[in-house]
């Protein structure tokens, strides 16, 4: 795997760290629910899933 593609995953990790912590996490910090899932949970799970998809794409495309 080339360094550039490895760094994509490193940046993903940094982005996750930022988004899962204050102050960013407070953006989703309000009452209410989507499909019966409270907003905060729903947004965390969505970001989580998104990160899985991104790593999947990066790895299947660039892992040698």
């Amino acid at each position, binding site marked *: 795997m080339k360094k550039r593609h490895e760094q994509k*995953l490193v940046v993903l990790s940094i982005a996750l760290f930022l988004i899962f912590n204050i102050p960013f996490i407070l953006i989703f910090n309000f009452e209410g629910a989507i499909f019966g899932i409270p907003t905060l949970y729903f947004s965390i*799970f969505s970001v989580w899933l998104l*990160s*899985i998809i991104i790593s999947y794409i990066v790895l299947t495309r660039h892992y040698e």
Partner: protein
Amino acid sequence: MNNYTLISIIVIYLAVLFYIAFLAEKKRQSKWVNNPYVYTLSLAVYCSAWTYYGSVGIAANSGINFLPIYLGPVIAVPLWIVVLRKIIRISKQHKISSIADFISLRYGNNRFLGALVTIICLFGTLPYISLQLKAVSETFEIMSDDSSYISTTVIDDSTFYVALLLAVFATFFGTQRTDASEKHKGIIASVAFESVLKLVFFLIIGVYVTYYLFDGTTDIYNQISVLPNFKQLTTLSGVEDGLNWLYLISLSFMAVFLLPRQFQVSVLENNREKHLKKAIWLFPLYLLLFNLFVIFIAWAGKLTFGSTENAEYYSLLLPLENNNSFLATLVFLGGFSAVISMVIVSTLALSTMVSNNLIIPYGFLDKFIKNQPERNSKYIKNIRRISIFTIIISAYFFYVLFSKELSLYSIGLISFVIIAQLAPSFFLGLYWNRGSSKAAIIGALVGFCIAIYTLVLPFTLRVYTGTDDFTQFGLFNISSLKPYALFGIDFLSPPAHAFFWSMTFNVMTYMVVSLLAKGNYRERNYAEMFVDSRNFTTLQDSALVWKGEAYVADIKNVLIRFLGEKRASRALNIFFTKYKLPKDTQLADARLINFSEKLLTGSIGSASAKILIASVVKEERVSLVEVLKILEESKENIVSNKVLLEKSNELTQLSSKLKEANEELISKDKQKDEFLDTVAHELKTPITGIRAATELLMDEDDEMPKDIKAQFLKNILQDSDRLGRLIHNILDFEKLETGRLNLDLQYQDIQKTIVKAINSISQIAAKKEVQIINKNTHGFITSYDEDRILQVLTNLLSNAIKFCESKTGEIIVDYKLGNERVEISVTDNGKGIPEEDFDYIFDKFYQSKHQNTRKPAGSGLGLAITKQIVEKHQGKIWAEKGVKNGAILVFTIPFK
């Protein structure tokens, strides 16, 4: 459910696990055992009973705080491609067998550091194992119909027997080999199997609760959202809560690297680096699936039971409440799986650490040196077996003493905070080559003490004294020393608070001491190897700088003690072959020292290996500057070696080319000689004729009749002509063969050229009364040198005429268009070409070799010249084989 039914279910389940582990151990190379999915599933040992039961408890009681434990790993996992891969590479290269080994090796095989790491890991893991036992005992209690079931003594307590069974399992599959850096495929396979079970059963109960007991997620949400305090369950209460949240995420981020069981499965049991490719996205997915239904199970339980007293076991209580004991059994088995895998992998990792970093280097080494190899390996295995039992039994007593006081969640977090004390020496040591062993030891000690003071001491004292004074008023009633609010920082939860203080002091101490005290040369050597691992993998055994005097025989003796005669000799043989050293080498070099240390590391740990090897060699101290210089040099050497190799390859190629050229020249020279011979011979024949005739004419000038005289003169003329023709042909041929001839390529009609050739030769044909037929009368224009092709045609035609009988002779000239080429053929009905001559007719002077039997009928160069001309046109010329009457000669001219 009946106690005995439950126990038999447990026993059957354990038997299945034994069988799976046994199969995997038997088929170690099978692809069922070695694949990225098994690797990923084994990583899921992260989800222990804490995840399985504890998360639900937190979700029901305090809300969102169960999530950071999984968000940490989710953030960490993408980094694996860089960090974990580096760790795996280093570990494989040095045959590392535990995290204590890894850290102590980084700081120059430091014996005390290895022991300290082991002790921290023990303190961190024992409560964690006891947490698992607590879960087993409490779920057992819930499942058994005897609701008054309370264990009074150890002998009555089924948890004790479960713990013993687990110890047997870990002993059986964990200590089959002396070398702990070897893979434990049986255990890993069973862990993977359990990971599938626990996830599937948890999802089943989640779906059952959400969609069967309730009417989907929205239904649960609508019912729960009317309760008071609901807001605190679904949101963060503010910035202070956010800080707690941040510390918990950091804690779990570190834990996923540092927990002994995680290090065991992710680093030591990693078969191939490329398994990371799947694990990096599959592992977070596993964690996500595990967390999906947690809140709904928690809220459903809260709605059903009202109180949150037993919230951790809602997933069991809910199906039992609805009389679905089958589902409850599944959930119980899932939780049991989570417990088993965690306990077994943890004890395996810990027992290796205890034996290799605590017991062997502190006390057993002298004994080992005197012992026989078989007994040594038995001793090592026994130490590990006893460690496994001791660890599990200590965990059991911890559970008996403390667990009833604490929730699963708080025990888990205590473990995390203690284990996190390894983080500075681990992570910083991996990327900062200044970090020194002193700093690592002092930092970890300081952090550990703070963690004990702020987290362990309060609940221990509460159990012993029965009062909360220590927590309430602090040490000696100094309020700034309150364990949960050091120096007045009282807004953090106890684990986050402990983490904050211990980690701050740990990191700062580590960095400050590292900068104040320089490590010794050996330490710096390993630091360079770890930090710059990519560069040093290529150096392999020469990456260790070592100076001194050592004998191969002494080192071999040490190796034999631990590996046995056969393996030690084999290993040394491999070493000597690898570095191309003679088998009877006497003096050992740095590479052999490093190689032997690595060999021993798997069995007795890196610190002991260093001590053992050091005991048989005389080491000289090397200055730090020298170490760095030698390392730099060896790095450069490798580079220049590569360049040298390339250069020498180039030279070899060049010399072989030269050889070829030389051979070609020699053969050319030979050909030239032969050619000259033949030419001289050819020239001599007509000259002899001319000379003889002239002599006769001069001697008998008067008496010779006039007609005979004329005959002689005619002979002279003919021979001169022949001589002239010969010389012309030779010059022509030379020109062609040396490539000095330039073709005058022009677009011409091939048909017209053929007609020209026939016309020029028609005189001779008419004289011999041979008929020439031009068969194909269509014109075709292509590019060629007309003069030269005329020469070819004339040559072929005159040859044909020569071999034809007069009167009956018939020559057919024909051409056809083929695959990008014109194919011109000259067919005659003469005497044909003898079979043995087919391969030679185009050779120069070929006919001359038959001069004794046949009269020369040409210069012998005609066909050779023809061939040269055709080949110069990139064409081919050949005589058709298998012709009954006469001969067919064909040549081609390519066109585009």
